[in-house]
């Protein structure tokens, strides 16, 4: 069903994944920010991503203006997906979400070390991700794409 997030993509979104957000303004100038952590809602279509407040103002301005959002998610193995959808809402992150983000940074560090990144890169790369204060940005996924490098990249999954 269109926009229904497949099991594997839910696992990746909830796992030690790197999450990038893309928006655009009215002049079609794109903008980027990293998210630290994501939560897929029970309906399997709605997703919340967590962005440092200091990086959220441009995104929120774009989203209030046109609502269009792209979220890329990838593992250290290069397995990657992209969700495209429409903005729903935003709010400051709460204690439970901050705890989720702290756990996410720790799992990112473990996965980076497992993937062979030296400690001198893996630790500052992952534990240097700012996350508080943060904004929880919720959107409704409408399309899900495979984005792992290779001949299947760009395939519409849902």
């Amino acid at each position, binding site marked *: 069903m269109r926009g229904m997030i497949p099991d594997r993509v839910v696992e990746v979104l909830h796992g030690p994944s790197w999450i*990038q*957000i*893309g*928006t*655009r303004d009215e*002049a*079609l*100038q*794109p*903008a*980027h*920010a*990293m998210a630290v952590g994501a939560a897929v809602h029970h309906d399997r279509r709605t997703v919340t991503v967590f962005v*440092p*407040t*200091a*990086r959220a103002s441009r995104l929120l301005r774009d989203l209030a203006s*046109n609502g*269009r*959002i*792209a*979220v*890329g998610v*990838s593992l250290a193995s*290069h397995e*990657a997906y*992209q969700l*495209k959808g429409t903005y729903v809402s935003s709010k400051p992150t709460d204690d439970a979400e901050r705890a989720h983000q702290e756990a996410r940074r720790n799992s990112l560090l473990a996965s980076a070390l497992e993937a062979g990144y030296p*400690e001198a*890169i893996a*630790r*500052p*790369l992952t*534990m*240097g*991700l*700012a996350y508080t204060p943060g904004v929880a940005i919720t959107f409704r996924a409408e399309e899900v794409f495979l*984005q792992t*490098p*290779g001949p299947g*990249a*760009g395939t519409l999954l849902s």
Partner: protein
Amino acid sequence: MGILPDEIKPAMQGVIPSHVVTCSRDGTPNASAISQVYYVDADHVALSHQFFNKTKRNIEENPRAAVWLISPETFEAWDLELEFVRSETSGPVFDVMEMQIEAIASIVGMKGIFKLRAADIFRVTAATKAVGERIPLTEIRAPR
């Protein structure tokens, strides 16, 4: 004096993947990782075009792109705003990028998958540090 400061150059060595966001003519953004952002000169960079993908199609429709980079030395992140100029499939920039892509592919186990099709040259219209995204190195605790 160009837009890109010298301190951004380590972020363009391909040690840590960069990200690129583009936007189609109909206003749909696209977010993707990119193996290499190559320093051409103080006002231009080249992005590795490895696959016939949405990023490439979007650039043909709308020349604007946003790129995120991070230095493997200082771990400071940067935002670039870019405008597409041209694609090069030969010449010195292409040759160096092709060699570096092969090296990156070998290191990350993507040999045979990562292959440079073109060096896409962009003019840099803005370069700013991604303030608030990174915790300073001095504040990151070492393992016990």
